[in-house]
């Protein structure tokens, strides 16, 4: 059951929060590294990134996004029936961050709250999970808090040119006759090593020596606590799996490409995103990008892009969006969602 349809679920609003601190991928590195960095930036398309200071967690950004969205929606706190946090940067390994945020946001004890561990692919999955609870009639209003503090794994923020931090909030509600949402969601765990933090879970518990950095074949210093990303495997996966999934989803929904107003893809890097766009034959103006200023914010890159690039268009009238996430897992999925009269606060900088 990769494809599915949800009825009577309305997209009510979305808010996005990023940290204040900006790192420039070229200007902030030592002068002797700049020419190499310029080549990198040309190809990955990421000039600046937003990075949390030590004290700031993903949940702090998500809290600000949720607080603003609830206020702008004029939803009272005890109306929220479910709170789902979707992140790979929880406050603690135990307990779930969603439950901490239930209290922090002042939501009722009757709120269903739990975490979902998904990264770059997460946005369509999160809509499907919350949407299913709403479509079943079990709950009326739900809040998805989604994002990551992806930059924390690298103590030297200059070493990693890709990752950036963001927290987002999305509100869904029950509405009889709301336009259907269509989904296609997929998983392939055989590729689990392509993007992995190998130490710190129960398979390889943390020991002191894991914290010691060693120099790799590529000249960079890494410890076992750092994220390992197999670039060739990720680019092959993304460019081979995503375009056919989008075609399949459109076929399932019986919607033509020109009936989609905007295609919002996970912002991975320019090479991956451009290859996907060209394979699908999509014009640049229908595929908004925030890579240059906001980098790769994991699953939050979809809400970041909608908030930063599409607020005016969404305020002007109904838009049909195709939202597509792909990455760590390996996991990939898409959702077609009609958005009308929803609340989109301006980007929050915290």
């Amino acid at each position, binding site marked *: 059951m990769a494809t599915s349809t949800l009825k009577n679920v309305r997209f009510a609003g979305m808010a996005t929060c990023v940290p204040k601190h900006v790192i420039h991928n070229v200007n902030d590195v030592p002068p002797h590294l700049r020419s190499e960095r310029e*080549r990198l930036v*040309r*190809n990955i398309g990421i000039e600046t990134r937003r990075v949390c200071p030590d004290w700031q967690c993903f949940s702090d950004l998500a809290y600000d996004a949720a607080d603003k969205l609830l206020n702008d929606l004029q939803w009272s706190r005890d109306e929220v029936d479910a709170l789902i946090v979707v992140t790979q940067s929880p406050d603690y390994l135990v307990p779930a961050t969603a439950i901490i945020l239930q209290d922090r946001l002042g939501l009722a004890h009757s709120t269903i709250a739990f975490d979902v561990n998904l990264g770059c692919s997460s946005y369509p999955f999160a809509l499907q999970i919350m949407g299913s609870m709403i479509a079943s009639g079990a709950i009326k209003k739900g809040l998805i808090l989604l994002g990551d503090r992806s930059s924390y794994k690298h103590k030297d923020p200059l070493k990693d040119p890709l990752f950036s931090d963001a927290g987002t909030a999305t509100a869904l509600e029950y509405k009889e006759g709301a336009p259907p949402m269509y989904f296609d969601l997929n998983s392939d765990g055989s590729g689990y090593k392509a993007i992995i933090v190998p130490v710190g879970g129960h398979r390889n518990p943390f020991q002191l020596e894991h914290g010691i950095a060693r120099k790799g074949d*590529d000249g960079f210093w890494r410890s076992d606590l750092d994220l390992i990303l*197999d*670039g*060739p*495997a990720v680019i092959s996966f993304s460019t081979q799996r995503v375009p056919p999934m989008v075609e399949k989803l459109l076929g399932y929904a019986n919607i033509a490409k020109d009936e989609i107003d905007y295609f919002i893809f996970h912002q991975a890097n320019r090479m991956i995103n451009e*290859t996907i766009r060209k*394979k699908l034959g999509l014009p640049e103006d229908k595929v908004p990008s925030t890579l240059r200023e906001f980098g790769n914010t994991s699953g939050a890159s979809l809400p970041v892009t909608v908030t930063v690039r599409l607020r005016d268009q969404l305020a002007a009238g109904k838009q049909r969006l195709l939202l597509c996430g792909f990455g760590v897992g390996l996991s990939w999925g898409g959702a077609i969602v009609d958005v009308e009269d929803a609340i989109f606060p301006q980007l929050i900088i915290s």
Partner: protein
Amino acid sequence: MDNIDTFIEKFITAVDFQEAVEITPDTILKDLPEWDSLAALGVIVLSDMEYGKTITGEHLKQVSTVNDLYQLLN
């Protein structure tokens, strides 16, 4: 399939060399100043988009010269 000279032109664009380099079919990939992970991504995309062929990081580790790469995509 392109002839090897055309392939070399596309290869140079895909790797995005910072300074001009002279490349022949016998050039050894590892000796190139920018034969790094970014170059690998560029070549994987080139292979897919221009030649309709899916190659992996493992394929790239197994080839030695520019001509070997050309043959792999042929």
